[in-house]
């Protein structure tokens, strides 16, 4: 390495020397041109001014073969010949090895490697045409409209209520507070939905009264099947009276309470 460093130094010196002359020449030409253009009209310069040859070296690894080629290039320099700019990339680019950690992780995982996120977007951009775009936007609009309709109407309510009715947690034993909370939450959700529907002018399904079985009245042994027996008198509330009347109207067997 030390040898090549020394060599390079020598070469640079020679380059700088020769560049001096070249630059002077350039400057002189530029000066002449400016003076000419000030006096007459601007020149049409199609041909580029011959510039100093540049040999850009990237990376540290510089091998002496290249140096020789550079020197041989130097020997063939002429003023009116456009010089080809040589850019040399080193195969061993130290920075290039340090790939982003996540890409390494993505590639070396056990899954088949997936494309980087920006790659598919390029592909879609290339593929999409204006007609497709139009179709896409209209589709999107329809989609949104459909979503809105489904959300605000009760087309799918029956199935949704069915789904919501299945609460596996309800079967399990859980603290009372939890169950209460779940019920309260469900009720709140339902009222919110109804409120929203009313605001949007959507007619929802009718509130179904809970089809819970009538609670058995707690009563002691020997107590009457209807009313309250207290202080030697059977007291019938208006509710009891109504129920008796109803049973008579509907017929005995149908109206039997239990």
């Amino acid at each position, binding site marked *: 390495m030390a040898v090549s460093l020394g060599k390079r130094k020598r070469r640079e010196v020679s380059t700088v020397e020769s560049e001096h002359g070249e630059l002077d020449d350039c400057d002189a030409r530029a000066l002449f041109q400016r003076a000419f253009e000030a006096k007459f009209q601007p020149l049409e310069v199609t041909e580029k001014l011959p510039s100093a040859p540049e040999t850009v070296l990237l990376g540290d690894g510089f091998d002496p073969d290249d140096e020789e080629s550079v020197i041989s290039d130097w020997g063939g320099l002429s003023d009116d010949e456009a010089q080809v700019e040589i850019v040399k*990339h080193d*195969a*061993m680019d130290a920075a*290039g090895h340090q*790939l982003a950690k996540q*890409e*390494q992780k993505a*590639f*070396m995982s*056990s*899954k*088949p*490697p997936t*494309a980087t996120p920006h*790659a598919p977007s*390029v*592909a879609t951009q290339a593929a999409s045409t204006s007609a497709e775009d139009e179709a896409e936007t209209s589709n999107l609009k329809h989609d949104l409209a459909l979503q809105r309709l489904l959300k605000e109407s009760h087309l799918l309510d029956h199935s949704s209520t069915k789904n919501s009715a299945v609460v596996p947690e309800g079967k399990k034993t859980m603290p009372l507070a939890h169950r209460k909370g779940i019920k309260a939450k469900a009720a709140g959700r339902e009222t919110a939905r109804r409120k929203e529907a009313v605001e949007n002018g959507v007619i929802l399904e009718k509130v179904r009264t809970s089809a819970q079985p009538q609670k058995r009245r707690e009563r002691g042994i020997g107590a009457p099947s209807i009313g309250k027996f207290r202080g030697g008198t059977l007291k019938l509330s208006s509710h009891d009276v109504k129920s008796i009347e109803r049973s008579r109207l509907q017929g005995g067997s149908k109206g039997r309470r239990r």
Partner: protein
Amino acid sequence: MAATPTPTTLRFTGSKHLIQRLVLATLTGKPLRISQIRSVSHTSPGLAPHEVSFLRLLEALTNGSQIEFSYTGTTVLYKPGLITGSAAGHGAQGGVIRHEVPGVITSSTEAGDVSVDTVRTAILPVFKSFGIERDLELRILRRSNAGRDGKGGGGEVQLVFGHQVRLPRTVHLMSAGRVKRVRGVAYSTGVAGANNARLIEAARGVLNVVAPDTYIFSDVSAAPFVPAPTRENPAAKRKTGLGFGLSLVAETNTGALYSADVASPPAGGEPPEDLGRKCAFQLLEAIEQGGCVSSVAAPTLLMLMAMGSEDVGRVALGREVLGSEHVLQLARDLRTFGMSGWSLRDGDEEDSVVVSIVGKGVGNVGRKIT
């Protein structure tokens, strides 16, 4: 069951394409009989150990398979059963079938097999175009190159194929696109990791000029320590499967993949630089062949297309890929197994042929044959 007519046994001869035929038989549920397997060989007639291992694997994956060998192993009769996959109660525990295959080699071999890395990075992505993309994994638990005499390693892999579809989707792969990046894995098993660096440098030296987006990852692992009992020491163990190798995959902008594989020969004697350069040239050759699928993944893709839904799928293949022996033989075998024929026409790109295949709707259902 009694009403089902017994399908006629298909007859094949020779040891070539044996595994492909066994796979087709299993998928279509047709029994087959292969005779004259290496019958001219005096030293090792009949089925090779890896073929027997494959038959055992098929038996583990299916329920009710019948396999009969002749005395010398030159004839095998295979009646496929129902593919159970990892259904519980049929040899699978916890959704996993554990099946031990002796001497797994994870690297590429001189016989032309590809490495696990290539399978993972170049063949598994092929399933994506058929709508099979979730939960595909190939875990490399232990790497191993080929053993001392070129056979037998001590590797361990796990294949997870978690995405089950009823039928593979119809594919239309028409444009191969242009290569946008090259990725790769260099692996050293039981040897110095410097081999990886040398492989990578050599390969990049060739590829960087044409594909600047080239990255090759390095994987260094210890050699598997397998039991090797001798008479003096029954508990003896020795290291096996030492070596190194390189797997390269080029991806185009349309998602086509080309791959190349090189591993150190078991006898040694090839420097990593030569192998790296060889692998890079091999990759360039695969890219030159063109088409949407390389010759490595072509059989998988064509088989899936033939089994897929009853619709015309199209794929542009390179002329050389289509004309290779194993693809042609696959076409003939598919025909023998009752799949539809292929129609060919010239593709848009030069040296490419568009192959149209009508699927047969075999799908993901095993058929019990008694």
